[in-house]
């Protein structure tokens, strides 16, 4: 994975989190915008390797919905993302509210996501900002078999809790 141009940051709250990801793609932003907004393209890259996207429906207009089903490598388990478009500015900006549901329709998390595409002369810098709230037992079931590689010290946990209890 080209970790060099993938930067991440997250806020301290444990249930409501900010996440910013950036990635530079060697493609013009028109193409990337298309890849984000056309079902046949979306199905080809949505989800980690081994996952598939059997269903994708896009109604690309403000207030329109976007639904994509992600099937797990076991071929059985599925998660669905349902989104409603808030802003559509081709080829530079896309924002939507999104909800992730498990196979039983239980809401796992919801949030607001903004995608910004910046032209770097042929290449494109994609910035994804998302503010998500974990709703229920959004657990290790989600992406089974992936190593989170995450470690949190008790000190940092204490800081996070102190910050959070102020709000």
């Amino acid at each position, binding site marked *: 994975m080209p970790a060099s141009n993938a930067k991440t940051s997250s806020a301290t709250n444990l*249930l409501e989190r900010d*996440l910013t*990801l950036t990635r530079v793609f060697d*493609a013009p932003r028109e193409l990337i915008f298309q890849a984000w907004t056309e079902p046949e393209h979306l199905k080809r*890259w949505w989800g980690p390797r081994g996952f598939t996207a059997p269903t994708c429906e896009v109604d690309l207009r403000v207030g329109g919905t976007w639904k994509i089903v992600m099937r797990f490598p076991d071929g059985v388990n599925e998660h669905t993302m349902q989104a409603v478009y808030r802003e559509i500015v081709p080829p530079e900006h896309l924002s939507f509210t999104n909800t992730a549901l498990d196979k039983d329709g239980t809401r796992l998390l919801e949030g607001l996501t903004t995608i910004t595409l910046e032209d770097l002369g042929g290449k494109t810098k994609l910035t994804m900002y998302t503010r998500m709230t974990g709703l229920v037992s959004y*657990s290790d079931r*989600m992406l089974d078999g992936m190593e989170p590689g995450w470690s949190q010290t008790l000190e940092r946990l204490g800081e996070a809790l102190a910050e959070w*209890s102020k709000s």
Partner: protein
Amino acid sequence: MTTPDHLSATFAALADPTRRAILARLATGEASVTQLAEPFEMSMPAISKHLKVLERAHLIGRGREAQWRPCRLEAAPLKDISDWIDHYRQFWEQSFDRLDDYLRELKARDSAAQKPRAKDKKHARKQRKN
């Protein structure tokens, strides 16, 4: 890893600001029920009730050794609850990896599609000559 049910209990226990404040206090070290009650305008039974919820969610442990039964923070369920955002991050990072591959594929297909078009042009020139 705790089970999803445990995780729901953790979410429920964390939903209350008093309980979060208690956990923040315990992150600095063990404390007695009396010490924990100090910052709050709350009766001891009310505090005890909050502690029971936290104990059931395995967020705190109570000492058996001393009569004052000190409370201490149990970090494991909090780590689990924090993992969800990490899973989410991983979801996007790995999707972006695939998007990167897919865009390469599209570009390769596009340049392959341009070659026959160049041929067409030649063909068109030939036709004009004729």
